């Protein structure tokens, strides 16, 4: 009894976003740490935090589509690219301010998402996978070859991000823009997951025919999932464009799409916390590998051009090992650790 009291939550607790007081306390500590990050962390760490933030937003977008609704997309980076290029073109060529460019990028991606969503309504499983793959390659191609608009691999340089006359062009400042948007996206995604709409999406994932029979409008919810997901992806892409300042076609390739799927898998499918953990993990992983393989490259200069292979191999291995050994992802590990301490003297 003493044990179960800690493990079982009642229905009312389940309905809350944060189930227990301790969750609130740890969240408050996290909030303080995040808000003061630029003051105690170095420039490099702030930059990594910015990239993580953008990746978290992007991964949350994919988790709505793939984690919640079960529609597998290999074209997520294409949606991010659409958002990024819309923002960049409006910023560089039309001179729009950032406050207009970010939503414009997101809306552009969302509209495309709706268009892509329609033909995919009839498709399932692997047919859908390959269709989104086709969308990815076609978008990539158009971005690369529509030179008059996108300047191909020369890239587009964005105007400095300004809000109300304040220049946010440094990582220290832009960090807060990303932080706010990442938190808002995370809360909204969590909220969506707990709402009627979110439950409908999960029903579509688990058994779409059964969902239709109990009165869920399949087409509506599938397209909704595409629109929400690509809106978030477009926002992430636009933010990324402002963060980097100069975007080129190779920021939004097929490998990036795979990377985003890897994030939600490593994190734990369909959970917001898991998605966040997974995104951070997949951002830190290549950094860690580079830190380790850098000295190797200086020690053996002959190997230097090939050293990039190591990170590709490790990245592949991480995906394989997670899927075989820990299908619940980082979220599953987190839950296990938590349960271990909660039930402490009675653990088995």
């Amino acid at each position, binding site marked *: 009894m003493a044990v179960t009291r800690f493990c079982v939550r009642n229905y009312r607790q389940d309905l809350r976003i944060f189930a227990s007081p301790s969750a609130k306390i740890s969240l408050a500590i996290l909030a303080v740490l995040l808000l003061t990050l630029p003051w105690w962390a170095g420039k490099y760490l702030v930059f990594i935090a910015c990239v993580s933030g953008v990746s978290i937003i992007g991964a949350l977008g994919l988790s709505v589509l*793939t984690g919640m609704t079960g529609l*597998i997309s290999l074209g997520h980076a294409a949606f991010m690219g659409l958002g990024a290029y819309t923002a960049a073109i409006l910023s560089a060529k039309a001179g729009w301010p950032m406050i207009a460019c970010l939503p414009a990028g997101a809306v552009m991606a969302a509209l495309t998402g709706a268009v892509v969503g329609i*033909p995919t309504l*009839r*498709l*399932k*499983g*692997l*047919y859908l*996978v*390959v*269709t989104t*793959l*086709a*969308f990815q*390659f*076609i978008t990539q*191609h158009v971005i*690369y*070859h529509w030179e008059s608009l996108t300047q191909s691999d020369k890239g587009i340089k964005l105007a400095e991000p300004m809000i109300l006359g304040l220049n946010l062009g440094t990582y220290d400042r832009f960090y807060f823009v990303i932080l706010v948007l990442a938190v808002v996206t995370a809360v909204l995604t969590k909220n969506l997951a707990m709402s009627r709409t979110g439950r409908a999406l999960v029903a579509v994932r688990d*058994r779409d*025919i*059964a969902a239709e*029979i109990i009165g869920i409008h399949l087409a509506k919810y599938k397209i909704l999932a595409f629109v929400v997901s690509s809106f978030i992806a477009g926002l992430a892409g636009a933010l990324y464009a402002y963060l980097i300042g100069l975007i080129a076609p190779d920021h939004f390739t097929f490998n990036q799409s*795979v990377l985003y*799927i*890897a994030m939600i*898998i490593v994190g734990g*499918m369909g959970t917001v916390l898991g998605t966040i953990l997974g995104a951070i993990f997949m951002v830190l992983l290549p950094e860690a590998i580079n830190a380790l393989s850098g000295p190797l490259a200086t020690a053996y200069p002959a190997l230097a*051009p*090939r*050293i*990039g*292979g*190591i*990170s*590709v*191999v*490790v*990245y*592949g*291995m*991480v*995906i*394989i090992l997670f*899927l*075989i050994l820990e*299908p619940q992802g980082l979220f599953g590990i987190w839950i296990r650790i938590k349960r271990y301490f909660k039930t402490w003297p009675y653990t088995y």
Partner: protein
Amino acid sequence: MGLEILLQLVVTGLAWGSVYALIALGFVLIFKATEIFNFAQPELMMLGAYFAFALITTLRLPFIAAFVATLVLMIVVAAVLEMLIVRPMVGEPVLAVIMVTLGLANVIRGLTGLIWGYEELQFPKPFSSDPLVVFGAVMNQAEVFTILATAVLLVAFLLFFKYSSAGLSMRATAEDTTTAFLMGINVKRVFTASWAIASVVATVAGIMLATFTYLEPIMSHAGLKALPAMILGGMDSIPGAIIGGLIIGVAENLAGFYLESYLGAGINEIAAYVIVLIVMMVRPYGLFGTKEIERV
């Protein structure tokens, strides 16, 4: 003149199409037997070509010997991969399975880059580089050999599946795994065999592709176009995979030549994907795929 160019384009297209068809055939074989979608198939193709390259250049084996040795090597590699990585995933959700093979693809691509580097390598040419002139059209011998080799291989597989008991048991497993198991077919061995055969066809495709292009890790991206080919034909249809591959190969070559001035350079690179998008809108199960009937 116009006709000769058309003939040349079609032959080149058929050669590329044969490569796609062989890779797509590997996809279908594995998918039918194990319900697993092997995204690492293009990487197996690439690995096969690199093995052959290594055997020819470092061990100085003649082409035919290197070819056979590579096939044996690749069968072993595929069997090991199947047992270690893929078998635990049988019956898991689609996404998990796709990601495992995508991870595998990364590992193979990374290792290839580490060992052989990322620069283009010239594959030792087994065929004479003199062009073949037929009806005034100039053809690359390697391309013609690719088409012939594919045809021979396909006939061999047709006979294998129709008459040999191993082929029959593979077909039975593809039809209904549980029943096949109950009838005494060693399903595990069939799974391994399907990976071995898929790696054989992929290796042939890789070596053939390397004889008329270059050897580089990017090769696997060309192999990825076998995906639209396979989807075009229908995921569970072997003739569909072959026809889909040939259609894509020819179509992208024709598009590259005739549509380039209208749609810009490089249209051939995405022709395959455009075609598959259009076909998917009209026929969601491909040209020859069976429509899945779902029951709750």
